[in-house]
């Protein structure tokens, strides 16, 4: 914005630059105070021995290097095992929620976008409703529904299934499956080997019943939001391509898979990115719902970061967990970016230039 203006000449250019800075100043100050400064502070706390009294920048707070990070990833103690458990829990949450919510929201979007459907407005509102309800309210609702004697178990018992005591059942679903086929106890090799203080057997436990309930809840609440993004994208598509495909004799499934879906790729990227970030940061459901229980099967890095700092006064470790979580989110986003990249794409530099890329249909 200021680039072209400043280089022209003399005082006029300077004035433009000053005006530019003046206009951007509020945003810069707000970002600085509420974003950059806290991040710098948190970064400092993560490598310091700050104990939670007074400012972290005050005299007396010492630099301790990577000690806090070491305690979490190689300390061999409770802190490491808790972090390992939190990662395990959250990994299952992400791996199950992100694909499911993406598929469900896409499915809903295609359904309510259909021209044949009567009462589209009603369905759109109904599907979007959970998204605008507060997480806390829905969590409370979920606690009731998934109570040992709650509606879900009542329904299951009608089908002849004895439902688990959802929010109190710490056994992982994969472990339950293993038990069902007769593998009650872990093979010795999987018991002894550990990663982040959690044995391989426990890494493979799968989400607990409590976490599964949270997984269902996440799909229920977020699908509406992402459905909205997909609807917007679907309405942006021109009908010609689909008509052409129809004339070529493509079935409706082929039209969706080979024509519509590729054109939705940018939206897909947004939805998955937002999904990844949201699921790795799950906090409020845990805080209001289970506080990490039963048997720590619903602690997540975000909740662990909070409780380590605020409840246990281990501020350095809490901040360190937050930074590791940040790194994990970045890595996952980059991975999915690579996976979703168009294989025959134009090099990045050329794509910025509108001319060559305008000609290509996406």
């Amino acid at each position: 914005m200021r680039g072209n203006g400043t280089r022209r000449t003399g005082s006029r250019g300077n004035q433009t630059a000053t005006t530019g800075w003046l206009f951007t100043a509020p945003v810069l100050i707000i970002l600085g105070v509420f974003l950059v400064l806290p991040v710098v502070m948190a970064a400092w706390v993560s490598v310091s021995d700050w104990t939670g009294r007074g400012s972290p920048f005050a005299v007396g707070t010492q630099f301790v290097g990577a000690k806090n990070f070491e305690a979490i990833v190689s300390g061999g103690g409770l802190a490491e095992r808790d972090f390992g458990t939190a990662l395990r829990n959250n990994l299952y949450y992400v791996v199950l929620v992100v694909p499911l919510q993406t598929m469900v929201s896409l499915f809903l979007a295609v359904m309510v976008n259909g021209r044949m459907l009567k009462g589209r407005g009603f369905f759109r509102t109904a599907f979007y409703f959970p998204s605008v309800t507060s997480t806390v309210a829905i969590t409370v609702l979920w606690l009731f529904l998934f109570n040992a004697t709650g509606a879900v178990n009542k329904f299951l018992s009608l089908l002849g299934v004895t439902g688990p005591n959802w929010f109190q059942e710490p056994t992982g679903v994969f472990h339950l499956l293993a038990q069902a086929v007769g593998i009650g106890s872990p093979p010795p090799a999987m018991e002894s080997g550990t990663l982040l203080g959690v044995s391989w057997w426990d890494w493979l436990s799968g989400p607990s019943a409590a976490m599964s309930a949270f997984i269902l809840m996440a799909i229920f609440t977020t699908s509406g939001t992402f459905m909205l993004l997909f609807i917007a994208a679907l309405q942006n598509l021109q009908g010609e391509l689909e008509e052409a495909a129809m004339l070529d004799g493509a079935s409706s499934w082929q039209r969706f898979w080979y024509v519509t879906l590729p054109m939705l790729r940018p939206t897909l990227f947004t939805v998955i990115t937002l999904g990844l970030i949201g699921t790795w940061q799950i906090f409020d459901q845990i805080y209001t719902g289970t506080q990490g229980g039963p048997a720590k099967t619903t602690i997540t890095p975000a909740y662990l970061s909070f409780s380590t700092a605020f409840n246990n006064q281990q501020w350095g470790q809490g901040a360190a967990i937050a930074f590791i979580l940040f790194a994990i989110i970045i890595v996952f986003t980059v991975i999915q970016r690579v996976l979703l990249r168009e294989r025959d794409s134009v090099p990045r530099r050329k794509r910025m230039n509108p001319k060559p890329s305008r000609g290509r249909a996406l």
Partner: protein
Amino acid sequence: MKTPRASRLAAAITICLTGALSLTACGSGFASSSPESSGAGSGPITVLIAASGDAEATSVKDAVAEWSKTSGTEASVNVASDLAQQLSQGFASGKPADVFYLSPDQLSGYASNGSLEPYADSLSNKDDFQPSLTKAFTYDGKFYCAPKDSSTLSLVINNDLWQAAGLTDADVPTTWDELEATAKKLTSGNTVGLSFSPEVARVAAFFPQAGGSLLSADGKKATVNSAENVKALTFVKKMLTDGSAKFSSDLGAGWGGEAFGKQLSAMTIEGNWISGALSKDFPSIKYRTVELPAGPKGKGTLQFTNCWGIAADSKNKPAAKALVEQLTGTQTQMTFAKAFGVMPSVVSAESEFKKAFPEQEASIAGVEYAQTLPSQPGAADVLKDFNAKLATLQASDPKAILDAIQTEMTATLSK
């Protein structure tokens, strides 16, 4: 496409960065004021409490308002929704509440970073507190804060279910065997004989009954996996396995009191606070409380307490201290006892309390032989892990659980 991809991507990445960074920002309190304080001085007093219910909040507010009137110092009471988080925030910002509730497991953390004022040694009534409570709030040889009340665990029995099972006063269990036998008799239909929360704060009451404890007497060594504790936990597991006892969570209740109130269990192990909860939520339940049955090595129970902490950064410490002196006085504590069912923390109120609440005899008796849970730095975390492991007690080996906790506790104590 109509929207350039690059900008959409940029937007996504910006959202990603913002989201991730703002999460990390949660880790830091934001403050610039200096932690030094004037100490003496005047000014209003703020009190931060975590109330068990309206009764507690109202009576604390009344007591503080009364002190405010006589002393002439302005004072206000805030009820915290998340006490630990609000305290931490206050200490980090240098503007904490002057007087607040503090649990023993938080004491070491706040005392070691200098947030707490070790004032209790200079209180005029400091020798009046029960010795076990004074010990619970002593850190590094300093008596930090005045215990505000006390509670012990006892066995709560539903009278109607008791009679329905054909039991009489003579059947009140006094040994483990009798406990098991009565629990079996009381188990029928949807009701189990005994239920309690799956946490160390209940289960550990069995340890002293078998002669064990979590720490050595001087509090320097972990004795979690002692033979006595293994015996106690094995007994608990046996009761859970044969169905005469169940964790309240397995009954779909939030805690022992809820399971008891809903008549899902005929007996429960809870503290004095259950009287307040039952009269509020389940007023029709008739019950009695008796001492916990003795194990092979005699009686045992657990004692719980909170204290009135004063912040080192308080602007008006003399007034804060005067307020605490008033709040821990015999009279105020009796008022609190009547309002929300806690036991006074001072010896001088004991006889009056016994007279006013004969039904709480068992709790008072428990004070004699009660143990407290470890409150050393880091111990709270180990106990949390203990809770997590207890949830799977039925499917696990008691010795293995205790061994794991022993290792963690030893590591914590040697830090």
